[in-house]
């Protein structure tokens, strides 16, 4: 089977005031369709950096990133935006919902960027909210939702766009254990029932217990 996502000798070095800080050192990783994978490791190990590079949010210093058979590390800013728009879903640690939009509108945001018709957007966003049990909160704004509900809306936003892969950066870090667990269960069932590929960066042991595969990172490298 062809990997959905692949990195080859992926290296990222941050330069600030001529001081170089290596974040990733030659990471080789393959993610296959339908996987539920966690990137684990201590803070500063390069989890988020790897996630961002795999999603085309940042450009590597060296190495290659392949998504769906296409090399993406050399794409332009606008091409990367198109790639993220159509192929990648993101869930962030801080939810990052747009405060002036309702839950339904947030869930439909990516579809609006794609220019999909209003009825289609609304139907897909509502369906995603239903999957995550948020349909009753569809017309609430983020400040009227709890942290767990906001994160479920954020997952619905990624889900509604039906991407090839959802990349989640510490999705349970800001949630209490009960809410975090519920969210994990939601994502796990989406993975099982709809075959959506998930890759997380996390050090949440509850999440690590439920993934198919754990990729451990240490000092910017995959630990043996």
């Amino acid at each position, binding site marked *: 089977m062809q990997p959905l996502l692949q990195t080859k000798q992926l290296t990222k070095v941050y330069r600030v005031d001529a001081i170089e800080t290596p974040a990733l050192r030659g990471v080789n990783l393959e993610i296959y369709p339908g996987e539920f994978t966690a990137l684990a490791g201590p803070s500063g190990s390069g989890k988020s950096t790897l996630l961002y590079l795999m999603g085309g949010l940042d450009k590597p210093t060296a190495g290659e990133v392949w998504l769906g058979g296409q090399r993406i590390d050399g794409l332009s800013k606008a091409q990367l935006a*198109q790639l993220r*728009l159509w192929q990648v879903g993101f869930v*962030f640690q801080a939810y990052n919902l747009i405060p*002036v*939009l309702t839950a339904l*509108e947030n869930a439909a945001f990516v579809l609006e*960027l794609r220019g999909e018709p209003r009825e289609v957007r609304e139907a897909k966003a509502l369906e995603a909210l239903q999957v995550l049990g948020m349909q009753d909160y569809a017309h609430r704004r983020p400040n009227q939702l709890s942290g767990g509900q906001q994160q479920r809306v954020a997952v619905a*936003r990624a889900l509604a766009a039906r991407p090839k892969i959802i990349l989640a950066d510490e999705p349970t870090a800001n949630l209490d254990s009960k809410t975090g667990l519920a969210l994990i269960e939601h994502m796990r069932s989406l993975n099982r029932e709809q075959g959506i590929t998930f890759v997380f960066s996390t050090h949440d042991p509850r999440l690590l217990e439920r993934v198919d595969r754990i990729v451990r990172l240490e000092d910017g490298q995959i630990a043996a």
Partner: protein
Amino acid sequence: MFNLFSLSWRNIWRHRGRSLLTAGAVGLAVFFTLFYLSFLGAMENSIYNNLTASVGHLQVRVEGYREKREFRDLLIPGVAQVEARLAAQTQAQWVVALEVPALVAGETRSRGVLLIGDRRPAALREAFAKQYLAEGQLPEADDLEGIALGASLARALRLKLGDPVYVYAPGTEGRGAGAYRLVGLLRFPEAAQEARSAYLSLAAAQELAAPGGATRIELHFPFTRYSQDAQLAVVQPQLAASLGPGLSVESWREASPAIAQIFALLTPLVLIFAAIFFGLAGLLVVNTIYLGLLERTRELGVMVALGAGPAQVARMVVLESLLLCSSGAVVGGALGLLTIAALSGGFSLEALYGPVGSEFGLPSVVYLSLRAWDIPITLGFALATGLLAAWWPARVAARLEPVEAMRFTA
């Protein structure tokens, strides 16, 4: 369900106070621009109507009359034929005038004047009397004895209504001298004009200086607005061609070049003021949009991360700026139009510039009125302000890197 338009609309009202202040500044600029443009329109119309009422829209004279020194060289040959051609060519009314340099005397004093004998259609005669007649009446068309003088000229000659007036016009082709009776006193805005004006009927002036002669034919078109003046550009050369060589057809611009120059300066002057108003308002718009951008950098970073392209982000910033300016423009425009409507019935400016204004042909009562392009120009300014103010913030927004933006703290 939202779209980028409604998202931008919601974004600008996140900081209600700041946005209201900014939209208010744009509204104020729109209000003042509309007001000044309507005021300018009113002044233009008033000055134009005053001026053309006294000199006509077009004047037919002998070609090169300014250089001619002899009275007889100034006489229009074949006045009756010229009038017949005018009747066939134009819908305008006309005044036939004979201007004669003359000496006017009372019992004890005399003054050099420009004696004018004219024949006016009833409507123009009525308008002339309404505007300039201070006392008595104008000489009737068939009156060979009545004369009207400028009030200050009559004072200088120590004459009152009913007194005899003696006129000498040496070197002319008529009787050269005559005795008349003072029937009217005239008051003109310009003191110099009042001090040297004397009016006879055309028949009386012709009998005195040039039987059947005239030196000037004024054409008065039924224009009430300066914007209609553009039609003269078509009519003038047609008339000149039909009258043939030896005669010139001059517009009021050529007859009064100084006022024509003032007209040409008025609109650019108001537009410069408008540009300053909108420039100041634009600085507030830049400030509001850029502050909004700084405060929402993380949010914009998320949008970029989710797939918003540089053009989409820039478009959203531009849209916010345009919506902010449009909101102000709608309110300022509505208030401006209401004010203009309220003042379109006329208001006095004498308190502002006193009697001096009339010396320059300024109207004592101004009727605010908008010209066809005043509203598009004002809205164009508001639109340009929105676009220019958004240019830099939009550029910054379009260059946001998602990872850096999401880590940004203001």
